[in-house]
């Protein structure tokens, strides 16, 4: 545990960059897919990638240096000071389920659109004006 602590302090900037950077890059990549890709399924995948990035940000923000999972299993009954922030993890659980529901609904609409147009290319579908 101590070794890890030292390593964490030594490479803190790098770890921060890795975690936050990954999350923000995921959001950006997802947004790129949603706004610029032409294939409907790719757009839905983009939505999922954005969600993944946001969820990663949540969990990353809740992390505490060398913290453990917030579970009071036997032997850890009084270890509350070593535990990470549980709230973002609980919120992320809710957000994941909602993201799943939206993705399922989006896919069903994609299937509908494909049935009507025989294509999943958004350029050939736009019959409604923006």
């Amino acid at each position, binding site marked *: 545990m101590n070794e890890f602590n030292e390593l*964490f302090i030594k490479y*803190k900037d790098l*770890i*921060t960059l890795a*975690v*936050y950077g990954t999350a*923000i890059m995921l*959001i*950006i990549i997802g*947004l*790129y897919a949603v*706004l*610029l890709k032409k294939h409907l399924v790719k757009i839905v995948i983009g939505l999922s990638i954005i969600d993944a990035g946001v969820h990663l*940000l949540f969990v*990353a*923000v809740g*992390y*505490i*240096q060398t913290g453990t*999972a*917030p*579970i*009071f*299993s*036997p032997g850890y*009954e009084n270890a*509350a*000071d070593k*535990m990470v*922030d*549980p*709230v973002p*993890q*609980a919120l992320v*659980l*809710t957000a*994941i*389920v*909602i993201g*799943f*529901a*939206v993705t*399922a*609904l989006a*896919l*069903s*609409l994609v*299937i*509908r659109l*494909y*049935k009507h147009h*025989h294509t999943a290319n958004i350029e050939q579908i736009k019959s409604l004006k923006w």
Partner: protein
Amino acid sequence: MKRYIIFLFIAVLGWTLAQTFRAIPFGADRRGNLDQPDRVAAFYLKESPETLQTANSITAIVVNFRGFDTLGEVTVLFLAATGLASILYRKEEDDETEERITLISSSLVRTGAKILFPLILLLGIYVFIHGHLTPGGGFQGGAIIATGFLLMLITYKRFDTNHNLMVWLESLAGLAFVATGLYGLFTYGSFLQNTHSVGTLNDLISGGLIPLIYIFIGIKVGTELTNILDILLKIKPGKQS
């Protein structure tokens, strides 16, 4: 032109996020004072083993402290299944789409699936029954159960989830969740309030109503996800309607 505007928008957003999160140091303690909580995180870490006798504090938050969110979350899933059914599969209108799309699987896969299926169900049930002690819980367990059904659905063309039973289980689990909440309302005066006799920390029966609610959630999520998968597999893409 539109392309460049979008690139600009994405770049601005990325820059903003990067700048903002530089001000939020990674790994810093933001829980506040643990003995006299002034932030919710510290309060939950303090109360979850003390008052609720629940080992997994995330479960305590999901089911009790912020149980209302979870009720909403279960509802979102329920509504997504309903919406999916209304958009994709209407038994009364699409008789021709009764059939499911499945590839023909080899006997190896079929035998393996048959062996794995009960084990997956067992694992799912284990996960949601121990939701208050170990990582996991109703949503995770429900998702595991749904993967078991998915395995069966894509392996066997003739395998059918008993739709009637699914509807009953799903509705009854949902009603039981709300009824548990109402029990708290009528007995202690607050919706979803926990019972006072909560058992001891780290016992299987501890945390009062929390394990019970998580079992209902597990059943409900499992049946709902199975339903969604079933509907998605039942339609034939490409066929004109």
